């Protein structure tokens, strides 16, 4: 975990209200699939807190994140230009994706896909079988489809409105892969909840989101109920959990 002020290397609009930001980060070896950062790209105390973003990719000296403008913090981020600097804390998260097992099915819903992309890349580099099902409301929101092609990751696209790929949810695809495939998913809570219910009998890992104040385990704000009646910190005991361990 490092606290750094770093330069914005790129901040591109890649879809409706959706941006790709590349940031300086000189310690790529520290980043593992599942990690996230807390980022503040504005000065002053309002908005006060940093915002959480999955690390979507890393190259020698840089990381990238994809973000959707949903409120004040992300709206301010969208105004950043190349050369501006932002504060980041990371990499964060202690329970990350597991790379063991030979076959991996990744289910990415909307802006959850950037939570899985680095996993896809690393699994492929390890010579494992990887298949990504990537879904969004409509075609223009499939902002990582080029990335999947560039990195030669086998994948299938889904849209709710049928504007690209198969109409419907990525969850349909899950049935077509037998239990030799480990499932990893990241996306809206509704999707993860549905997946947990329909895939009870197989190994499923979920990367969760929660409102976070600190991101490093000290506020106890980001909790998710566990199956044995405790509250676990998403930022610290997660963000990746075996589906059977959490109550959604």
């Amino acid at each position, binding site marked *: 975990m490092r606290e750094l002020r770093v330069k914005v290397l790129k901040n591109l609009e890649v879809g409706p209200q959706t941006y790709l930001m590349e940031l300086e980060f000189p310690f790529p070896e520290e980043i593992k699939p599942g990690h996230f950062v807390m980022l503040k790209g504005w000065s002053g105390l309002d908005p006060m807190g940093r915002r959480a973003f999955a690390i979507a990719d890393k190259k020698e000296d840089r990381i990238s994140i994809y973000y959707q403008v949903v409120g004040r913090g992300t709206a301010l981020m969208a105004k950043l230009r190349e050369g501006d600097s932002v*504060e980041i804390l990371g990499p964060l998260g202690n329970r990350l994706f597991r790379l063991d097992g030979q076959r991996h099915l990744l289910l990415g819903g909307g802006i959850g896909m950037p939570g899985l992309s680095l996993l896809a890349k690393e699994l492929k580099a390890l010579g494992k079988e990887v298949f990504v099902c990537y879904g969004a409301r409509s075609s223009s929101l499939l902002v990582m489809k080029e990335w999947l092609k560039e990195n030669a990751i086998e994948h299938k696209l889904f849209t709710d409105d049928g504007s690209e790929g198969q109409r419907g949810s990525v969850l349909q695809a899950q049935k077509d892969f037998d239990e030799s495939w480990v499932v990893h998913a990241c996306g809206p809570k509704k999707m993860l909840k549905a997946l947990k219910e329909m895939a009870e009998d197989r190994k499923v890992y979920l990367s969760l989101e929660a409102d976070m104040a600190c991101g490093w385990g000290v506020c106890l704000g980001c909790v998710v109920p566990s199956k044995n009646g405790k509250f676990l910190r998403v930022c610290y005991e997660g963000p990746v959990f075996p589906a059977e361990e959490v109550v959604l």
Partner: protein
Amino acid sequence: MDLSVKLFGISFKNPVWVASGTFGYGLEALKLYDVSKLGAVVTKGLSLKPRIGNEPPRIAETPCGMLNSIGLQNPGVEAFLKEIYPQIEHIDTHFIANVFGETEEEYLEVCLALESAEKIVAYELNVSCPNVKKGGLAFGHDLKVLGRLVNKIKGKVKKPVLVKLSPNTGDVVLFGKVCVDNGADGLVAINTLLGMKIDVEKRTPILSTVKGGLSGPAILPIAVRMVWELYQALGASVSIIGVGGIYDVDSALQHMLAGASAVQVGTANFFDPLSPLKILEGIEDYLRRHQLTLKDLVGGAHSEYRPDRCPC
């Protein structure tokens, strides 16, 4: 520069501490910086039995601040001693246990369980948590009950007892005085202010508990005012620890000039994790620039005592 302060018979490295509930038990921060640089770490509230805490959503951001309703989630004092304490033992600074109970007896039992834990140098009684149904505010909002609690604990424990005051009582001085009259060694001001936030799209309160505790820079002026009032009324007889809205050196200095002998950084740990260290450096720098000592700072803004008119 020597920034050490002696309070209630204990020597602290410096007056910059971290506040309860905003720093865990000090372990998470070890990955980020040398925690032994801090003057002290105040632990997350400890209760006799484990507490699971409140349902999420537990936090909500507000203008220059945040609301929380954590509900004192903690593993209980026994598990703390067994599992966490051995890991903090080697951290070379003082720890203060923030103690919470639903009954007088529980407060006492938690303190007694910690008596032989050397690393814990004092107790901070949390009588001001707005996020639990029993205990907490019940003690902090009733003069008689509070006096009896402090009296009982003081009579039974060896370590200094600090009382963390509620800002939600109307008159913080009355409550501070009752603590001092019953032997409290220090007053900690302030805990969070009761507040709430509503989601206008859903037309419902955001926190699962509806109301929660407001903290962060938004509450700084209120905290400074309360420290000021406590110092004016009781400064001669008790040490005051300032907490509330501290996020940079200016806000920390305001607390000290109002009367705080030491300060606790709370919510700022979330949005600026290195802020305690920056504040520490800032205080050193300030003292050097103005050729003052720490002693000059404490209460230095009160008219009876102005450092620039000090004969020494």
